[in-house]
């Protein structure tokens, strides 16, 4: 696990686009919403849409480089599935700290001026769930090099969008938060495992 984590951590800081791409995509979309000067009640919706598109775009290339340069094939041949589990977990943890948390903090700061820990937690769970789903799309479209397959994942996210609306737009924290957490568990287990298997098939 340590090796995988250190690789992802060092790669994150060695390749500048990993740092500026998520923040700049999120910033640009958010600024567009600011310019549009939408109603205050749509504040949360605009940050959700900005985060959604950001995670969609950064997930598109989650595995592309490692597939093209043969790293994934090596990992499957050398360490089998366990190494790839650590690899996927390491990617998620790095994104959790350096992408999801900053995006969550920026969103909450611009919405209310203060950062509530519970809302930040919801934001991070929300972004992580999106990340797992879009990673599956990214794995499916690995050899075809287009986003079409990734878009197929979006229908799976409809219940998730309803729950997020319940929390952020309707302001009903419970029971939506618990359903959202259940959806996160589903994404981090079943969708995670499916991504692993799809990557294995793509590496053959």
């Amino acid at each position: 696990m340590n090796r995988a984590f250190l690789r992802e951590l060092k790669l994150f800081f060695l390749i500048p686009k990993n740092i500026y791409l998520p923040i700049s995509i999120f910033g640009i979309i958010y600024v567009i919403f600011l310019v549009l000067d939408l109603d205050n009640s749509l504040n949360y919706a605009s940050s959700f849409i900005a985060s959604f598109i950001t995670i969609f775009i950064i997930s598109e290339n989650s595995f592309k480089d490692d597939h093209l340069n043969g790293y994934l094939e090596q990992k499957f041949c050398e360490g089998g599935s366990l190494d790839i589990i650590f690899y996927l977990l390491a990617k998620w943890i790095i994104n959790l700290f350096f992408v999801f948390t900053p995006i969550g903090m920026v969103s909450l700061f611009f919405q209310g001026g203060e950062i509530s820990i519970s809302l930040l937690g919801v934001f991070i769970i929300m972004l992580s769930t999106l990340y797992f789903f879009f990673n599956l799309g990214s794995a499916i479209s690995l050899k075809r090099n287009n986003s079409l397959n990734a878009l197929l994942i979006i229908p799976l996210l409809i219940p998730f969008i309803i729950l997020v609306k319940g929390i952020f737009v309707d302001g009903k924290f419970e029971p939506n938060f618990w359903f959202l957490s259940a959806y996160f568990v589903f994404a981090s287990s079943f969708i995670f495992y499916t991504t692993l298997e799809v990557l294995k098939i793509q590496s053959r």
Partner: protein
Amino acid sequence: MNLYSLNKISHQIDGKLVFSEISEVINSGEIIEIRGINGSGKTTLLKIITGLIACKGIGSKDYVADQISYLGHKNGFVEEITLRQNFEILNIQIEKGLLSRLGLKELKNQKFFNLSYGEKRKAALIRVISSGKNIWIVDEPFAGLDSESIGELKEIMLNHIGKGGTVILTNHQDKIDTSKKIVLGKENE
């Protein structure tokens, strides 16, 4: 020590028979050379041995999976960073003198995408050599290398098997005298 046993293995891709009835025993301390023309299934057989492609008729000891260092057609290195950074992110301790021996010492601080095909291949081979694993499985290790580097690499491989290691490789260039050969299809002589 017996590592793998291939017992009449056959493989099809999209209904086309790639190879059939391949039987061999792979022991530690051997170089196994898989030979054959393009499209004869050399790479596929390597992937079957590693377990990436499932196939009936192959048996292996439980401990071998942890002992594999694999290099396919692609090098597994990140293009945007330097050679030194690539070794660092993989936490590889390179054997002293190995970089100079393969002519890469002066290139450590070059971005990986600036290296030539042969230099990239040598860097990837250094990863396998320095992995500390006993079983090296490499696809066309000599492709793109100059004759001097091929000589060095053969010497390193012989040294590895001398210590009880195993090398399984595909090759359609000059044969390795001391290797055990698996020939797929007809080979151009």
